[in-house]
């Protein structure tokens, strides 16, 4: 490989990206757009579920129940209602997704038996939201129970026993605030990098065929390796810049906790960048028109990265054959690494399997890409 030819290739390619509005948009606007869309739009959490309250008793005890719901950020009390029919109409008008009904004898029953029913009603047209909201209601009720139990015990002169009392205290690790955003956003970086990297490089060879410049290029002494590496240099740099931007937005804007080493993050990001660039380049060599190449690139990067990388859908919950399939999805290794570095602060010792996966992938793809381009018409 000759350095002068390599640099000439990189120089030309950089100028072309710089002057091509479409490539520039993919390189600069796409990450911004995707980060905003996926960062804000995709969230598996439901917050501030609108809740109606029908408090038939309106006692101190019943108000403390309502207060517990008000205090939780999962619910917002949208209305207090005075009748059963009011709940129905509120739900019909979309004013609430759930309602709680506190019976008129709530505090009396509670005082007598130590427990009292509270009714929860859900609008189950959106099953997913309902399931999650039901969980939240149980969470709030559990909280109320814990405090009232203690109060009831105290008022009845029962010593809280330490033996035999099972205290469920859920402990959440790594993502203490239990926000799905912290889980998703590191993966978004992989999606963006895969999209941008492969999109840009998928055009690089096909553009030369389409415009007729390829015939001139292959009549010169430039070698296939010089063509490949010369062309990939600017895209590699763009990929790293985009990744740095997205990672910074993840850490500083969305405040995803970052606990790992920047060094490992850089190395693995560079490896992943190489893989997606190599894939885009391979496609570009095979498909000699820009439109086709860019569509195939979309298919081979976006699809597996969004569906099979574990970025939104957990891999261990997939059926066995699909799980096996994810082994050849390069982004799953990077998503795993990203999450581990961000949330767990894992080092190389913990991450050697996915890192090795990426290294192997990068090596194979670059080897294939290097052999794919032939200087023939």
């Amino acid at each position, binding site marked *: 490989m*000759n350095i*002068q*030819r390599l*640099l*000439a*290739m990189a*120089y*030309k390619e950089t*100028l*072309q990206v710089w*002057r*091509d509005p479409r490539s520039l948009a993919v390189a600069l606007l796409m990450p911004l757009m995707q980060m905003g869309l996926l960062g804000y739009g995709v969230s598996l959490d439901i917050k501030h579920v609108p809740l109606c309250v029908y408090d038939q008793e309106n006692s101190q005890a019943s108000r403390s129940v309502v207060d517990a719901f008000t205090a939780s950020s999962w619910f917002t009390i949208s209305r207090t209602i005075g009748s059963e029919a009011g709940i129905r109409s509120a739900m019909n008008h979309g004013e609430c997704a759930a309602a709680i009904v506190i019976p008129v004898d709530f505090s009396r029953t509670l005082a007598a038996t130590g427990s009292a029913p509270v009714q929860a009603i859900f609008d189950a047209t959106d099953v997913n939201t309902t399931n999650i909201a039901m969980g939240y209601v149980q969470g709030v009720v559990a909280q109320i129970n814990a405090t009232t139990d203690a109060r009831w015990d105290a008022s009845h002169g029962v010593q809280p026993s330490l033996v035999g009392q099972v205290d469920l205290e859920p402990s959440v690790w790594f993502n203490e605030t239990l926000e799905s955003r912290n889980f998703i956003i590191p993966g978004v970086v992989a999606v963006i990098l895969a999209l941008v990297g492969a999109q840009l490089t998928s055009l690089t060879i096909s553009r030369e065929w389409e*415009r*007729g*410049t*390829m*015939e*001139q*290029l*292959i*009549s*010169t*002494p*430039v*070698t296939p390796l010089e063509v490949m590496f010369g062309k990939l240099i600017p895209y590699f740099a763009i990929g790293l810049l985009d990744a740095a931007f997205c990672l910074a937005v993840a850490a500083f804007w969305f405040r995803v906790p970052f606990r790992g080493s920047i060094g490992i993050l850089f190395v693995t990001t560079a490896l992943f960048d190489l893989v997606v660039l190599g894939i885009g380049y391979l496609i570009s060599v095979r498909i000699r028109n820009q439109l086709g190449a860019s569509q195939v690139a979309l298919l081979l990067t976006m699809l597996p990265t969004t569906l099979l990388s574990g970025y939104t859908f957990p891999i261990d919950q997939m059926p066995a054959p699909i799980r096996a399939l994810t082994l050849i999805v390069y982004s799953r290794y990077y998503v795993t690494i990203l999450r581990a570095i961000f949330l767990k602060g894992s080092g190389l010792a913990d991450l050697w399997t996915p890192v090795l996966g990426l290294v192997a992938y990068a090596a194979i793809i670059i080897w294939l890409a290097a052999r794919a381009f032939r*200087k*023939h*018409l």
Partner: protein
Amino acid sequence: MSPDNPAVLAEGLTKRFSGFTAVDHLDLRIEKGEVVGFIGPNGAGKSTTIRMLCGLLRPSEGRASVAGFDVGRQPEAVREHIGYMSQKFSLYGDLTVRENLRFFGGIYRVPHGDFNERMRFAISMAGLEGREDALVRTLAGGWKQRLALGCAILHRPPILFLDEPTSGVEPEARRLFWDLIHELAAGGVAILVSTHYMEEAEYCNRIALIDGGRLVAMGTPSELRQRSLGGDLFEVDCVPLGAALKALGSAQGVIEAAIFGDKLHVVLGQGGLSADELPRFLADRDIRVGSVRPATPSLEDVFVRLVSTTRETRAAS
């Protein structure tokens, strides 16, 4: 390239695509400093031949060496020694004049010390002084072609392959382009240039005429004229034309006679009627003769004649 090697030597060069033979056992020899015109109808195999000689297509049969290197086995060595202009304009339109030159200079590994001087030379050759920073796609045809030539010779190749370099370029710009070609040839560069403009064939030292993938004839323009007619052409101004045509048609030594406008074109071979005897011959038959002048047939006529006789003999055999 050793001094006595021809710049280009092709022997039995053949290219078959699935179903048809684009180039059929072509022999070609081009010496240093020679401008060879590659002439033939569309689809005759000109571009395919040039692409094989540049190492872009692998020959199906036969062999060719360029600058002493085999095009099939040492294509990279061939590429170091050639400049090539493809039929379709193929510089980067989204790069400026200077950027294109810088790119090709880098690709051809022009030494740093020579870079600026060669770039200036190419720019002045293309007549693009003052437009170095214009995007190439904004240039008119003639400038584009001259710039493409400038890029193709940045590394001073001893051999140039130009595939229809002047197609679509206005006549004056074509003239300028041919001046450049002759300057390069005077410096010892061997040039194979294909064209479909017949008048451009005149500017070549030798012409290779090809049809149906086969070499029909090769020689200097005057050799080809001679060969195609089998004799010398004369233009005869006489009245009445019809009687003269009839009389000459059966005369010994007359290869061909035909009406050409208001005059007669007569081809005279060896050992029969000579040009000096022509006025007497016609006067004896009551034909008034104004003048008898030697004429040059247009190369177009020559090519049409050569191609059609070759096709006839091929069809007969």
